[in-house]
């Protein structure tokens, strides 16, 4: 690898929390962040007085559009009783809260602060689906959006290019979806904490009640092929290839490594951080890979002094099923053009050699866009501390996990590497 980039001083996560992700009529951004924050401070093994927090970074993509309120840094700071301490909002579309964590880590590494809260929030479900789509499209490239592309359509176009290049098919993507639902069933914080079989049974009950013909699906793969169960959104992306609309919040408590022992004997060390920027779809060097991903990975691997083989599990940004394949190739977990086979063979399942999205991923856990990056880290925190309960990765020697977050259609990509050892 290249030269090793180092932080001025080490940074650790000593607490982490998230709200349950869902579509809420009765919970707003402040309520959701309060829930995430409470879980975060309660997770600090040796406790923390929140008044010790010196600064806050908050990721939010566009509550401005979704609920017509901007300037979320001070609103959340006020909620938590933190004024007059500084509160900074970061925006990187769906990667907003990873940017918050990264900037908070830089602030600690610089020596300016010792104890910083970083997280994110988004409140998306109060408006119509069409309006949410319009809001999300603000993060798209002007050329694609102008010509009628939606987000699912951008990833649909990427999928058609991937299929043509490597001989994969849409059926291969269903292995991503089935796996995500299996993991989410084990995650009480997930918006869809049920398997596809569970959803099939609910649907069959509904058809029976209404006296409609009951489908004879022999397994979940057959149900996914049925357009009544899984209608097309933007070919080849069907409903089950797409993440839902969600409300939620997540946060982590970061401290300087030298004081981490005051808060816990089991901190999680940030050992690699990377970020990249990308171009509009038509200008990308390849339609089947994101250069921002590759740059983010390169930065993080160099800082950590690690290679893809050293990563034992990861949360990746599966806004659409095809994205999960693109990411695990870009991050080097699989060779380009092979991820679909690796997934098909069970390589990314909870008990596979490279568990991906043990939380259920964006597809099932939910995707309140500004909260997603921090929520990915909440999952890595639980896994690396052996606290993931029924979805704990069955590996007695688990030390290094990662999270990859994507904003827009690849305009912003981040990659973070964590360890439970120094």
């Amino acid at each position, binding site marked *: 690898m290249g030269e090793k980039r180092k932080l001025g001083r080490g940074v650790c996560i000593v607490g982490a929390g998230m709200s349950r992700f869902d579509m809420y009529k009765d919970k707003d951004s402040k309520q959701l962040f309060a829930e995430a924050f409470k879980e975060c401070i309660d997770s600090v093994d040796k406790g923390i007085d929140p008044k010790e927090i010196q600064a806050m970074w908050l990721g939010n993509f566009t509550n401005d559009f979704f609920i017509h309120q901007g300037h979320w840094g001070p609103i959340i700071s006020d909620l938590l009783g933190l004024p007059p301490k500084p509160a900074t909002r970061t925006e990187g579309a769906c990667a907003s809260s990873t940017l918050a964590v990264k900037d908070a880590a830089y602030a600690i590494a610089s020596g300016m602060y010792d104890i910083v809260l970083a997280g994110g929030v988004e409140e998306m479900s109060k408006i119509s689906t069409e309006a949410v789509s319009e809001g999300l499209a603000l993060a798209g490239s002007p*050329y694609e959006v102008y010509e009628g*592309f*939606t987000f699912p359509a951008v990833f*649909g176009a990427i999928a058609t290019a991937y299929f043509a290049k490597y001989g994969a098919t849409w059926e291969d993507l269903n292995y991503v979806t089935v796996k995500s639902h299996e993991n989410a069933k084990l995650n009480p914080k997930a918006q869809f904490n049920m398997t596809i079989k569970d959803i099939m049974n609910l649907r069959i009950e509904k058809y029976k009640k209404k006296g409609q013909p009951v489908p004879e699906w022999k397994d979940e793969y057959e149900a996914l092929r049925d357009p009544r169960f899984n209608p*097309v959104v*933007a070919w080849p992306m069907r409903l089950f290839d797409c993440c839902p609309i969600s409300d939620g919040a997540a946060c982590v408590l970061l401290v300087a490594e030298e004081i981490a022992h005051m808060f816990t004997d089991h901190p999680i060390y940030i050992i690699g951080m990377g970020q990249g920027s990308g171009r509009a779809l038509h200008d990308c060097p390849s339609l089947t890979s994101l250069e921002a991903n590759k740059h983010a990975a390169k930065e993080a691997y160099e800082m950590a002094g690690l290679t893809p083989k050293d990563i034992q599990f990861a949360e990746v940004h599966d806004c659409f099923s095809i994205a999960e394949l693109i990411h695990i190739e870009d991050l080097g977990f699989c060779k380009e053009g092979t991820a679909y086979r690796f997934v098909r063979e069970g390589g990314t399942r909870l008990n596979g050699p490279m568990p991906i999205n043990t939380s259920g991923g964006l597809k099932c856990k939910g995707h309140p866009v500004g909260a997603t990056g921090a929520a990915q880290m909440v999952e890595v925190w639980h896994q690396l501390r052996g606290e993931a309960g029924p979805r704990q990765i069955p590996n007695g020697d688990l030390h290094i996990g990662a999270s990859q977050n994507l904003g827009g259609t690849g305009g912003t990509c981040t990659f973070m590497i964590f360890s439970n050892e120094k």
Partner: protein
Amino acid sequence: MEERYFNDISYKQFLNEERLMGSRCKGCGTLCFPPRPICTNCYSTDMEWAELKGNGKLAGFSSIFVPPAFMAEEGFDRKHPYVVGVVELEEGVRAVGRIVGVDANRPETIKIGTPVKAEFIHFGEGDQMRTHLAFRPVEGGAS
């Protein structure tokens, strides 16, 4: 026409005039489509207009069954999907646009690599005119 800035406003004006215009850097010859006000190869701002022929091949596409509001206003919905795509132009740059003359309800019949030619779809008139770029499969074009 040389008086226009090399930006998205000019790009859209040219679409209204049914011309596909990119910028060519006078310093290093790099072609950019849509046009750019500064060359990202040599950082010259000395540009000239370059007209593209609009011939290319389909590189990726999607048939959209859940349209955004402005496309729904055109009458598209779950029963009436439309196709968008990425096209590799023969000049070596890509473009995005609507793909017309294909069966959006049977997207499995649309093939990557299909030769296509640019068209222009106009809405409104005068100052209110906006034009969308579209591509149509070339009759008898071998893929």
